[in-house]
């Protein structure tokens, strides 16, 4: 194997093994930051040794053994061999000498619990959302700092600092490495789900930059979601989130036109929707429905996405069911953004006037003042009602508010089309795009 080959292989091994490695180490040293440093040291050792020695048959076990030795060395070097650490050192050594298969079997049984602990720790509410996102991608997604920086169009040092600070915060707050107890479990789980969905959304509707979508981030989020569904299979909302992401991701190919411009849901070529992901999404939704007595916010959004996925043409969409699902969502998690989506659904089910009534009620909402989708939706509904001048104004306002270059172009086109002569004018689909 040539050197670059080994590097590629080491990267691949890292992606596969790092989360398990860090999780296993964190259980031993009770510090996620230290666990990651130890894992990184083992990776450096692999990069030094594997080109000459070849890749070991069980690279994961090799990395784990190396990291554990480092842990012992570190404890000794830091002269922290108080009684507790001495015990730990002995425990580590005797484990290392134990028959390898036994140790591995024991590790394998525990690893799911360790991974779950790691996810809950990385997504701890003591951390800001952006710190949770970076740490989760790093510790569980196996992404390098450079990859995270590229994904979020941020400078590498920014992400580096974010991760360092997050690890320090966890240490200083003495966040325990554990799965939260029943009483706080629901809140902590929603913090985890929020992080995964934030990552997905950053890929699905890029908030910055010139690209409308960054599929690699969607894939990372989906993978995290699928892992989580295996780790916490009894949680309906985990399956709800997976359903939502699988179905939304099924449209990735259809959402971008030939020159990178966005294509909205009702204008998409449904033949290009990924049927494999749709099937997986519908199966995840079924699991969520089986587990929960009533649907949670992610499962509801997944169910809405499923209504679109099941319709072979826009006309076949069950908009009445979608309005009912949005009503439920608005009750469970009332928010101006949910209201806006409800407005779109009502417009489709019961006519543009019904939708505009809900949308107009949001004009006084301070949190939506700079949210481009409100004027975008209003523009669409006003255009359908033939209030063309008002429609143009709304679209122009939406164009001024969006940060996405591609979307701005689309909105300006619609502003111009609103007041263009009606002959031959094609009415583009509604803004209804999500979920």
């Amino acid at each position, binding site marked *: 194997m040539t050197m670059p080959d080994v590097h*590629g*292989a080491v*990267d*691949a*091994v890292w*992606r*596969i093994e790092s989360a398990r490695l860090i999780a296993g180490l964190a259980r031993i040293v009770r510090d996620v930051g230290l666990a990651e440093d130890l894992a990184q040291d083992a990776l450096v050792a692999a990069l030094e040794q594997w080109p000459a020695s070849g890749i070991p048959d069980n*690279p994961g076990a090799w990395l784990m053994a190396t990291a554990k030795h480092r842990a012992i060395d570190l404890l000794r070097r830091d002269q922290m061999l108080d009684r507790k650490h001495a015990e730990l050192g002995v425990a580590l050594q005797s484990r290392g000498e134990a028959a390898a298969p036994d140790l591995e079997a024991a590790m394998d049984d525990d690893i*799911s619990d360790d991974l779950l602990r790691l996810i809950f720790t990385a997504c701890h509410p003591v951390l800001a959302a952006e710190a949770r996102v970076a740490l989760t991608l790093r510790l569980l997604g196996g992404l390098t700092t450079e990859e995270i920086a590229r994904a979020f169009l941020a400078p590498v040092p920014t992400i580096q600092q974010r991760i360092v600070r997050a690890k320090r915060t966890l240490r200083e707050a003495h966040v325990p490495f554990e799965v939260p107890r029943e009483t706080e479990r629901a809140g902590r789980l929603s913090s985890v789900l929020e992080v995964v969905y934030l990552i997905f959304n950053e890929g699905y509707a890029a908030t910055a930059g010139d690209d409308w979508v960054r*599929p690699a981030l969607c*894939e990372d989020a*989906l*993978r*995290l*979601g*699928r*892992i989580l569904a*295996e*780790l916490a299979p009894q949680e309906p909302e985990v399956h709800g989130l997976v359903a939502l992401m699988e179905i939304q991701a099924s449209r990735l*190919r259809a959402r*971008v*036109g*030939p*020159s990178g411009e966005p*294509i909205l849901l*009702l*204008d998409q*070529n449904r*033949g290009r929707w990924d049927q*494999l992901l749709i099937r*997986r999404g519908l199966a995840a939704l079924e699991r969520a429905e089986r587990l929960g007595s009533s649907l949670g916010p992610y499962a509801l959004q997944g169910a809405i996405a499923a209504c679109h996925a099941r319709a072979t*043409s*826009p*006309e076949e969409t069950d908009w009445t069911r979608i309005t009912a699902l949005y009503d439920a969502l608005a009750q469970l998690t009332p928010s101006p953004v949910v209201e806006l989506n409800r407005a779109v659904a009502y417009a489709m089910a019961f006519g543009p006037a019904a939708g505009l009534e809900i949308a107009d009620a949001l004009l006084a909402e301070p949190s939506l003042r700079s949210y481009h989708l409100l004027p975008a939706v209003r523009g669409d509904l006003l255009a359908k009602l033939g209030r063309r001048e008002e429609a143009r104004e709304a679209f122009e306002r939406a164009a001024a508010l969006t940060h996405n270059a591609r979307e701005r172009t689309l909105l300006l086109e619609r502003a111009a089309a609103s007041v263009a002569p009606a002959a031959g004018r*094609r*009415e583009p*689909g509604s803004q209804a795009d999500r979920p």
Partner: protein
Amino acid sequence: MRVMVIVPASKESEAGVLPDEKILNEMGKFNEQLVKAGVMLAGEGLHPTSKAKRVRFDGAKRTVTDGPFTESKELIAGFWLWQVKSMDEAVEWLKRAPFGGGVEIVIRPVFETEDFGAAATPEIREREARLRAQVAARQK
């Protein structure tokens, strides 16, 4: 990226011999690992070609042949679809699969939209245009 991992047919698979319990067990464990890692999208095993049919295209003519087929090199016995970050990652996963006996498994990257690049643009444009026309027609 997605890859298809193609398992070739063997004398045994073509004879309809099912793998023994040990191999089934090991394969089950391997599949479980793939699912737990969020890598497995789909995977299927195929019946021997004695149950297959082959359709040959020649101009307007269609000739149907019943299996079994003998060119076993070209036959497959199963496949997986995996979601991975790179071909390297796919290789690392495949190395962990419980195969033996000189079998050779092939990993093929699946085309992604960006692979088509500018070349397919006119065709995609045309298809989009057709669809838009259909939608517009229905709305009238």
